[in-house]
């Protein structure tokens, strides 16, 4: 039982990180119907910015978190303006290839500047652990992950449901043309969406850095794909769906590597994805849309 709870806690911390990344995917997909493959790399950049802040500028955890979130959101806006905006009316596949090109660009530019080596993240939070139960260990990193995730989710819910920008975002995602006719500046809304999604990815990057202790330029690829799986699992374009999807994928993955074979943990996320797509393609919280002729 204790082992199960331990695995559950580990799964929840991994899942929170997936959820933070998945939110960016789901928001961008909801608005411009683009699988933003570069999103996983923005998360990687977030981790590197945090690394620089902590190691070279000697900043604490929270200043580093905020700086990395701001840097990532600016990066997100720039990427959207340069790469995705000219292709807004192009085919889906052209936009997708562009996203892949941006992803390669970010990965290899980081590799060029910072080197391909795996770097050890500075242990800024110390090595404090708690024992809420016999045989269950919660460390300070996990508590920070939960706290940061919950705060960011609350802020996001507030932005999306209580502010004007959030209202505009929801309007654009439900019908872009109609929103434009109502006088909403869609370009601005898309920029906001990229900024918010990228900021969340940046936060996830720094959290992963302190949790797993290592970062490298290609670290964004697999978590990026899994976060996308999480977004599809919860119903793409739906914000609570990304949260549920991320946490579910994280918990299942941890359970599989804990009780089964850790070699299969990467396959599990994709197996879940295929099952979801076959049984309920619109995702857990998605509504079925009828095809019209």
């Amino acid at each position, binding site marked *: 039982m204790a082992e199960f709870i331990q695995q559950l806690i580990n799964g929840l911390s991994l899942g929170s990180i997936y959820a933070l990344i998945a939110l960016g995917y789901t928001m961008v997909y909801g608005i411009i119907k683009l699988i933003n493959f570069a999103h996983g790399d923005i998360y990687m950049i977030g981790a590197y910015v945090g690394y620089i802040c902590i190691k070279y500028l000697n900043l604490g955890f929270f200043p580093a978190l905020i700086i990395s979130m701001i840097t990532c959101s600016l990066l997100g806006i720039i990427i959207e303006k340069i790469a995705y905006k000219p*292709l807004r009316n192009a085919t889906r596949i052209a936009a997708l290839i562009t996203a892949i090109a941006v992803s390669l660009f970010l990965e290899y530019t980081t590799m060029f500047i910072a080197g391909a080596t795996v770097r050890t993240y500075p242990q800024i939070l110390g090595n404090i652990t708690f024992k809420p139960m016999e045989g269950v260990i919660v460390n300070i990193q996990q508590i920070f992950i939960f706290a940061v995730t919950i705060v960011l989710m609350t802020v996001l819910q507030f932005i999306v449901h209580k502010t004007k920008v959030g209202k505009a975002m929801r309007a654009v995602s439900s019908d872009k043309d109609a929103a434009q006719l109502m006088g909403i500046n869609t370009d601005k809304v898309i920029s906001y969406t990229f900024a918010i999604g990228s900021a969340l990815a940046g936060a996830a990057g720094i959290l992963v850095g302190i949790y797993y202790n290592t970062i490298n330029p290609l670290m964004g690829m697999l978590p990026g794909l899994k976060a996308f799986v999480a977004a599809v699992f919860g119903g793409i374009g739906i914000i609570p769906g990304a949260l549920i999807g991320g946490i579910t994928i994280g918990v299942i993955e941890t359970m599989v590597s804990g009780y089964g074979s850790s070699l299969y943990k990467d396959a599990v996320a994709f197996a879940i994805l295929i099952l979801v797509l076959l049984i309920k393609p619109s995702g857990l919280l998605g509504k079925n849309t009828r095809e019209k002729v």
Partner: protein
Amino acid sequence: MKLSKNALISTKSNKKLINFLVIIAVYGIVQLLIFLGILGDYYQVTLAMICINIILAVSLNLVTGFTGQFSLGHAGFMAIGAYTCAIITKRYDSPLAFIIGIFAAAILAAIVGVLVGIPTLRLKGDYLAIATLGLAEIIRILILNFDSFTGGARGLGSIPQYTNWTWLYIFTISTIIVIKNFINSSHGRACISIREDEIASESVGINLTRYKVLAFVIGAFFAGIAGALYSSYFYYIKPGLFDFMKSIDILVIVVLGGMGSLTGSILASILLAIISTYLQSFAELRMIIYAILLLLIMIFRPQGLMGTKEFSLSKIFNKKQAPHENSAS
């Protein structure tokens, strides 16, 4: 009336003759260059990569460009082909085993294609892309875990090398011919109509699932052949070679050449190989330049180099001889 019919037949046979001669000439010239030692090892490797990429791109173009089904899992089929052929030729080391290996590779990849295709091809657009991506990753992870057969993460080494320029050329040309004829057949027309409008083609009686799966399976079949040729040429394979990035590479060739243009895929395979050879000297910067090039091409020419047009040699020759016959053909 009779005269114009004769003219038509003669243009057609003329066209075939020209194509045939060009095919033979290209083979002969390259073979001669290799024989004389003008084409060094380095360029031979590039040449092999071009041929393998042409097979992969042309077969993916059938699925993505002509049938409109967005697949990101082509590397998975290539991996199946590569491992099948490698395991067979490692066990029975003979030229016959190599031929059997290639066909076993293609057939096994096609069978997996059926199994994968029937459930997933119900999905559309991005969902299909992500499902095929997931399946290819699962194939790769399974290969990684069956290490008694496949050597796991270490990979399979010392595979007998049978692939040479002749085999590469034979398979590349046959892939192009088979897929070109498929596209020009009524089945191929059905596939193209699915790309244009699924609902409309369904309402004129085209069995959507059947043709989608058919295109997918043919694509998988040739990807299996490409994998087999790859493993037998480079005599070392590992699961990491067939990851998601490999599928992306193939898709990039198809999109760059133009979706729905076979000659575009061929052109793009050659072009990318040349660019990549040229950029070799830049080492780390290579991938950055590649990414920027890709970005610029997508921004300024999203339909690819050729769009849906085809380039044909005989057309050029005929234009010079008798331009009025062009419209008849």
